[in-house]
């Protein structure tokens, strides 16, 4: 491994070794904190505001740059979709950037070719198409909200009027748009205001886990979930098939096959419209609750539910007076000219019919993720000239005549809209590492503006928009803050929306009576929470991040309820054959408590075959069963058990608390009645000790984790991984129990196994004042510093591992093998402030010590004290719900001190008198049932 200092000095030379030629982008970029000067580039890190997109929606981020090398993603506090937080996927995209397996060269039929060769060939080809107006020329893009891309595309289509642009996104908002059209006659998108909704009913809408704007929604949602505040607590009802983050957060959850949810929605709408009774008590409770919160309630449907269900949701909101209060509608931020599914279907039909001569696939991986019934790969064979543009030589690249390496979003200029329409001008952090191009540059070929860079085009777009006057100032302002001010799409005025149209009177979904024994089952496709549609399969951090509610890493599985598994006679890890409409896929079984009976969920995004060493050959490919008619769920699934097994790497095997007060929880009512219910003997007064207490006269760092706010999204885990150079270890090592995450998110289930109530608990090092790990270390590698941090001195550690044995919280992680040292290609990505741990040493959370030291040095240089909030730990910074608060316990006004003064404050395993500095705030749920557990 190269030495860190050397790396600092010679970042350019090193990145060269990483496979490309790394240098800063040529055009000036603007750091988040102003006052950039040349000298500082050799020293401390800078942050640049930009945005990362997914499905076309922008998530504002601040990217940390260490001497020109992007090393970490933080949320952008000024961006409406972020408010400073981010989701695990954004964290992982830094590794996507540095992935050494990214495509390095233009390929022609698999052979290395040159950009010029391609340009020459394409120009000739386009010349030939010119007279016919570009008939036979097709563009396939992902969903996009970019103004520049839109205008460039328009310009291109203006030159080739017969050419067509298609859009495909495997996980798309088609149902959302179509649902709005059913209700209001137009393609619109809802924007929710969870901070105003006291009763929320989610119809399989995972607004905490996979909706555009989810990070912001999580923050909004938690505003009304603060038991210590005066405001009332909201109540969340969720009906869904596979337990999601939203389902786990629900105060009342109903497990139902996805196909049944439409019926329930219709029944509920009927009940709200005309009174009467519903068939189930659950619906009845929800209906009553909704009705008693008119204007302060919210019904929403997930992207997997058919348009009719969306329309029903809008109608119910209309009836409840919620429109304009808890939900508003805007023009879709992404460009919607036709639905993504229809658009792709039209393209593939033309391809089959031989009407496509030249196909430019500008992003996406349709060979892998197009609906199986379209047979995209066969259609592709009929296209004479196909050009794939992407980060990897993926499945589609392998089937196309040409492949062009794409530049990463952190390498290119662009612009994009957030879920609410707010615009961000994306700036690059680094010049393309592997000579990748931006889509805009490739499109230049069509517009005849060859040689223009993405910067030129974006600049031109904004010059047109801002106008000449004060342009530079506005441009710099927009770049620095990461948002163009006041660009959020205005809400559609209620009077323009009109009454939400009532969909057909009869049940809107295909009839789906309850499943009886012997009948076929239902299959449900959900996005993988981290790999999404599969595009992040090569990101090892995301592969190894345990999925909430399944705890699986490195694999997906056929997820089913314990009841169904028993009925089918299958056990965990047994491979079953899933057959749907003549297509089959094999997947191992994983039993999920709380899954709806009668359905099997197969997460999308797995079973990649060409996603590099990291991404390929993990899990089962759900796209093989997914059709354009039934993209989200389908009935008629047959499950045939086989005798084979596939071992699945789950990080937690036990989810019951066994009467140990690990997660302490209560209902709001119980909490109000007895606010200190969570406090046990050890929390009231420290147990007696023979030893005098140490004094911590300076700072005394401490942390508080609010289990009421924690939604279990695992963003903290991966933010910590990125911040602290934590290696991934691979499936084999995870199976052996050697995952390295410094902060893990434990889940405990209470209640019946068919309908458990799940609670998440992030567990970092507790920084015990009476640290059991320290007294057993023979070499002073695990010691306390003067501010109360339990530090691990890696270079002193000899690896006895007694500390890990003696840690009651089991947060210590040992480098059993050369985990970090074996990936020198990632050295340029690593945080230079954190030692890369060698084989044979113990490591663990240290409250992001490097951030404390850096802040302390800055404060000391200025001869002042650190102020509260100046040091944010990585987990704290990323947390969408601000469940984690960190600060100085000696400062009576610090946020952490305030948090810990809550009567809900308790220490995990406090009876052991470890005196943890990290404590928890008990979990409060707003159920109508009795106290859980």
């Amino acid at each position, binding site marked *: 491994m190269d030495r860190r200092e050397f790396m600092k000095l010679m970042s350019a030379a090193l990145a060269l070794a990483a496979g490309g030629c790394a240098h800063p982008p040529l055009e000036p970029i603007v750091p988040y904190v102003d006052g950039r000067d040349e000298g500082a580039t050799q020293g401390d890190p800078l942050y640049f505001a930009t945005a990362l997109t997914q499905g076309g929606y922008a998530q504002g981020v601040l990217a940390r740059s260490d001497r020109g090398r992007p090393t970490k993603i933080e949320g952008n506090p000024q961006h409406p979709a972020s408010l400073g937080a981010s989701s695990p996927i954004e964290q992982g995209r830094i590794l996507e950037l540095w992935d050494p397996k990214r495509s390095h060269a233009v390929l022609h039929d698999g052979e290395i070719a040159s950009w010029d060769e391609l340009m020459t060939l394409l120009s000739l080809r386009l010349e030939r198409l010119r007279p016919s107006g570009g008939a036979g020329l097709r563009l396939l893009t992902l969903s996009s909200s970019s103004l520049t891309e839109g205008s460039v595309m328009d310009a291109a289509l203006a030159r080739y009027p017969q050419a067509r642009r298609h859009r495909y996104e495997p996980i798309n908002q088609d149902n959302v748009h179509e649902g709005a059209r059913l209700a209001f006659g137009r393609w619109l998108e809802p924007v929710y205001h969870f901070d105003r909704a006291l009763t929320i009913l989610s119809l399989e809408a995972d607004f905490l886990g996979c909706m555009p704007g989810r990070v912001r929604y999580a923050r909004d949602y938690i505003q009304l979930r603060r038991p210590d505040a005066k405001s009332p607590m909201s109540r969340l009802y969720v009906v869904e098939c596979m337990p999601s983050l939203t389902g786990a957060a629900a105060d009342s959850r109903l497990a139902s096959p996805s196909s049944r949810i439409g019926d329930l929605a219709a029944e509920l709408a009927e009940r709200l419209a005309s009174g009467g009774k519903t068939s189930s008590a659950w619906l009845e409770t929800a209906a009553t609750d909704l009705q008693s919160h008119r204007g302060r309630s919210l019904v929403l449907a997930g992207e997997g539910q058919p348009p009719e269900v969306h329309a029903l949701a809008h109608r119910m909101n209309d009836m409840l007076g919620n429109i304009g209060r808890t939900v508003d509608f805007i023009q879709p931020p992404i460009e919607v000219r036709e639905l993504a599914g229809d658009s792709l279907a039209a393209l593939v039909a033309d391809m089959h019919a031989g009407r496509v001569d030249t196909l430019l696939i500008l992003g996406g991986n349709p060979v892998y993720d197009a609906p199986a019934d379209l047979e995209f790969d066969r259609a592709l064979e009929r296209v004479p000239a196909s050009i794939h543009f992407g980060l990897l030589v993926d499945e589609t690249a392998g089937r196309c005549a040409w492949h062009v390496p794409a530049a990463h979003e952190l390498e290119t200029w662009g612009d994009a809209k957030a879920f609410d329409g707010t615009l961000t001008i994306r700036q690059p952090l680094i010049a393309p590492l592997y000579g990748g191009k931006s889509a805009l540059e490739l499109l230049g070929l069509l517009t005849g503006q060859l040689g223009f860079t993405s910067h030129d085009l974006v600049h031109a777009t904004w010059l047109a928009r801002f106008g000449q006057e004060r342009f530079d100032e506005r441009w710099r302002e927009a770049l620095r803050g990461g948002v163009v001010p006041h660009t959020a799409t205005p809400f559609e005025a209620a009077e323009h929306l009109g009454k939400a149209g009532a969909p057909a009177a009869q049940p809107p979904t295909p009839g789906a009576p309850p499943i009886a024994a012997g009948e076929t089952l239902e299959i449900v496709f959900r996005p993988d929470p981290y790999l999404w549609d599969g595009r992040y399969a090569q990101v090892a951090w995301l592969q190894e991040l345990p999925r909430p509610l399944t705890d699986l890493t490195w694999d997906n599985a056929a997820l089913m309820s314990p009841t169904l598994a028993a009925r089918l006679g299958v056990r965990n890890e047994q491979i079953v054959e899933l057959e749907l409409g003549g297509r089959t896929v094999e997947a191992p079984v994983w039993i999920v408590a709380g899954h709806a009976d009668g359905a099997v969920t197969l997460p999308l995004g797995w079973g990649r075959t060409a996603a590099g060493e990291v991404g390929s050959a993990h899990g089962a490919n759900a796209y093989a069963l997914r059709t354009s008619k039934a993209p989200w769920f389908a009935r008629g699934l047959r499950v045939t058990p086989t005798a084979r097994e596939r071992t699945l790497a789950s990080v937690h095997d036990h989810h019951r608390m066994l009467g140990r007060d690990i997660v302490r929880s209560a209902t709001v009512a119980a909490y109000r009645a007895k606010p200190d219910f969570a406090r046990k003997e050890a929390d009231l007064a420290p147990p007696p000790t023979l030893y005098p207490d140490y004094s911590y006269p300076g700072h005394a760092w401490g942390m508080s984790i609010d289990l009421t706010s924690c939604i279990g999204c695992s963003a903290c885990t991966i933010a910590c991984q990125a911040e602290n150079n934590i290696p991934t270890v691979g499936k084999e090592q995870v199976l052996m129990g050697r995952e390295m995450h410094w902060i893990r998110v434990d889940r405990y289930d209470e209640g019946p196994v068919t309908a458990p109530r799940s609670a998440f608990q992030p567990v970092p090092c507790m920084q015990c004042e*009476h640290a059991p790990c320290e007294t057993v270390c023979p070499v002073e590698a695990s010691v*306390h510093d003067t501010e109360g941090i339990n530090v691990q001195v890696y270079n002193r550690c000899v690896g006895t591992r007694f500390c890990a044995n003696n840690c009651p919280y089991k947060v210590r992680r040992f480098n059993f093998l050369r985990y970090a040292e074996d990936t020198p290609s990632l050295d340029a990505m690593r945080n230079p402030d954190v030692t890369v741990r060698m084989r044979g040493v113990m490591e663990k959370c240290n409250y992001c010590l490097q951030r404390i030291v850096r802040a302390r040095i800055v404060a000391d240089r200025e001869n002042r004290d650190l102020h509260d909030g100046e040091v944010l730990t990585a987990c704290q910074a990323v947390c969408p719900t601000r469940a984690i608060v960190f600060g100085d316990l000696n400062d009576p006004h610090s946020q952490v001190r305030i948090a810990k003064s809550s009567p809900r404050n308790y220490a995990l395993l406090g009876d052991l008198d470890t005196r943890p500095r990290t404590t928890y705030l008990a979990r409060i749920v707003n159920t109508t049932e009795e106290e859980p557990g």
Partner: protein
Amino acid sequence: MSDGGRQPGCYGLMAEFGGSQEILEAVRASRGAGYRRIEAYTPFPVDGLAEALELRKSPIPLLTLIGGILGVAVGWFIQWYSAVIDYPINSGGRPLNSWPAFVPTIIELGILGACLCAFGGALLLSGLPRLRHPVFDTPGFERVSCDRFFLCIRSDDPLFDRERTHAWLAALSPLRVASTPIHPGEPA
């Protein structure tokens, strides 16, 4: 024949016996006869021989005690000095001078000091290691480590006289009497 003087070229006279009781009797007799610089060589520790030779009580127990005390002192000092004075570090919130936790190491170091002194003392007081020694030149001496017992009257004994001492030893009915030479230039 001066006091403490040694006859040139002669270490002493050796009488060889075949049993432990015989040499015990011979030693007692020789002491009785006034010989003072008597040495006895045996293949195993013969009970009563030390008393017969009137050897002083071995100082090794005292040495061992001193070694033990030294070990304890070093053990205590090094822990206290390093943990309290030289580099005080907060480990698990325990006091710097966690003396109860220092005790096991102190005990072990005490035992180490004692055992080194006991072993070293035994070698040192026995004059070992000494690979060459005049007695090895005694004819038949190699059986001293097997089944023979030797009584040596050294030539620096005040009563030593080659003939008379030889006669005295012969009278003890040994298996044989031999002279142990000293080669020129070698220390005795």
